[in-house]
């Protein structure tokens, strides 16, 4: 049973509440305490958790992994062994994974740098009766008998939320342009998929074009500057697949003598502090969060797994959306990433 809750104009508390909801729905009435943490398994001793992580990759990943490390604390009864990949190299991850299995840790958290090639390692963990929980990244092929659960926000859901906002905001349709990440990356495909599922069906929406700006602010600025000229400024909406590109688009729009938010609206995904600031100034119109902070969810899943309770094979981390300057202003002081 998948649970996806979209909350609006609520923020950190919403995330925690959603976590509760999620777990209440899938676990057989476990601790249920929203503050997360809790005593692991209740067996008195500490629980050893091996975290096969991605390591330095970007702001989102840093926030995500820091959050996991901050949640699985010694005070909460955990001994977290953090093993980031060296240079995003899968082999270093497999090595770390194997040594966790050999050590006999209680549970393994895995954020795979690459989806494929994990069958052997996961089978070994299964033989050693060590539950594995996937954090954010899935595996390919997605054989959910090999792991307990995957906890991740859902790109398709997140971009659907942007699309739904677009439909509400432009009831009479709009001309829109999409700023994509690097071509072929799965995140880009999923964010396109969610958007197209909703907007593609609307004949009133005209796609002026899509171009990659490689997640980058200055490239996005350069792309949008030319796109505006090519279309005589006749664009209503820009869907930027990350915050940085959205900010670049805002700069280009301003330079063209237009006002972002009025002449052209910009919607972005991620929900970084910078984007919320821009939203609070009205330069962006909509920001959908791709929530990195799900350490609490992970703790609950670990607890359930160790107790042998049933855990859903995919736990979607609920993500918030922000559709007004006020919502952004409210959220800003607590923004962690």
């Amino acid at each position, binding site marked *: 049973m998948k649970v996806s809750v979209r909350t609006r104009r609520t923020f950190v508390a919403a995330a925690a509440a959603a976590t509760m909801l999620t777990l209440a729905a899938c676990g057989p009435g476990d601790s249920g305490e929203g503050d997360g943490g809790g005593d692991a398994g209740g067996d008195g001793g500490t629980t050893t958790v091996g975290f096969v992580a991605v390591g*330095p*990759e*970007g*702001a989102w990943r*840093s926030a995500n992994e820091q959050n996991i490390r901050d949640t699985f604390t010694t005070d909460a009864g955990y001994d977290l062994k953090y093993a980031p990949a060296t*240079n995003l190299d899968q082999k270093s991850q497999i090595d770390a994974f194997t040594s966790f299995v050999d050590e006999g840790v209680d549970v393994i958290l895995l954020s795979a740098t690459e989806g494929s090639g994990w069958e052997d390692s996961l089978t070994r963990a299964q033989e050693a009766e060590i539950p594995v929980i996937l954090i954010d990244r899935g595996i390919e092929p997605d054989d959910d008998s090999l792991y307990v659960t995957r906890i991740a926000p859902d790109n398709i859901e997140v971009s659907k939320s942007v699309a739904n906002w677009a439909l509400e905001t432009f009831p009479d349709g709009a001309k829109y342009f999409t700023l*994509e990440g690097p*071509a*072929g990356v799965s995140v880009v495909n999923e964010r396109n998929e969610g958007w197209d599922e909703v907007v593609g069906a609307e004949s009133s929406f005209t796609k*002026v*074009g*899509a*171009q*990659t700006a*490689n*997640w*980058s*602010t*200055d*490239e996005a*600025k*350069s*792309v949008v*500057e*030319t*796109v505006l*000229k*090519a279309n005589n400024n006749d664009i209503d909406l820009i869907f930027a697949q990350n915050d*940085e590109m959205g*900010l*670049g688009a805002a*700069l280009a729009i301003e*330079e*063209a*003598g237009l006002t972002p938010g009025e002449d052209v609206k910009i919607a972005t995904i991620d929900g*970084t502090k*910078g984007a919320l600031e821009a939203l609070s100034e009205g330069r962006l119109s909509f920001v959908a969060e791709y929530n990195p902070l799900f350490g609490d969810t992970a703790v609950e899943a670990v607890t359930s797994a160790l107790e042998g309770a049933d855990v859903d094979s995919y736990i979607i981390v609920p993500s918030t959306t922000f559709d007004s300057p006020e919502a952004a202003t409210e959220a800003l002081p607590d923004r962690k990433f």
Partner: protein
Amino acid sequence: MSTATSSTFGERLRNVGRQQFVWAIVAIVLLLVINVIKDPTYLSISYSDNLGGLRGNLVDILRASAPILMIATGMALVIATGGIDLSIGSAMVIAGAVAMEFLSASGSSSLGTAGLALLLALLVAGVLGVVNGVLVSVVGLQPFISTLIMMLAGRGIAKVITGGQNTTATSEPFRWIANGYVVGLPVVVLLAVAIVAVVGLIVRRSALGLMIEAIGIDAEAARLAGVNKRAIIFTVYVAAAVLGGMAGVFATASVMTVDVSNTGNQMELDAILAVVIGGTSLAGGKFSIRGAAVGAVLIATLDKTVVFLGVPSSATPAFKAAVIVILFLIQSPWLHTQLAKLRSRRTTTPTTAEVTA
């Protein structure tokens, strides 16, 4: 330089054709023509009160060229010595990180602060160049390896400088570097052209160009001729990094944000491409700053054309690659000999053939 005696128009034309970057100019013109076909007003330039300067697609192309011009110039010097600088994109992000971090920390929008940020950015980028220079010229590591190390380390350093964040700052004078106008012309273009011209002049008016070429063609012969190989190679890597720093300032001042994972990312490839398009061999030796500059403008034109034409993202790399492969084919000596063969076979009166050539 050349004291060439009187030559026919045909000969002169053929000499021009032998300069590889001429074909890059042809390519730029063709791309512009394609854009004009799509939209007849493509080349129009107007004065924008909002910006306080000229606006138009051509202006956009030149502005987009500015950072590439910087790194292509630096890369040309490095490649001419027989080396390569893969860390030039990291010099960009480091300079950007230093500038943004300094500006955001100081919180001041004064001209002095902006100047200091610029100076500091170039200085720190220069330090990266010093490390490259020492690794290559003193330690004697392979340029590819040394600069590859610095490419990886550099981005890491930038992340340390900003604490892993994409730092944003406000400084009107600093923003002006990339977005401002002087007598209607974009400052960033004026700066870029001036810097390329100054570097070109220094290199050709002093003996630096001769020394660089001598080292690139035959390092041992140059050393035995008394050329201070170490000092020249060192100089070249520092110059490349400082130019990379300038490119980083351009790129970050434009959006007043340093994006630690994306600013300058893979820009070394654009730089290398621009240099090669400009007719400098990757093996080192004879080089052309002018050619590299033309190559830089071509790359910017190509980037802009792709967006203007609305080439789908997935087809963009293929489109760019096709243009560049065709260009290299046209430039290749092989094609020229083939054409010459054809010509001599076909014509009976060589003089007319030359004129049509």
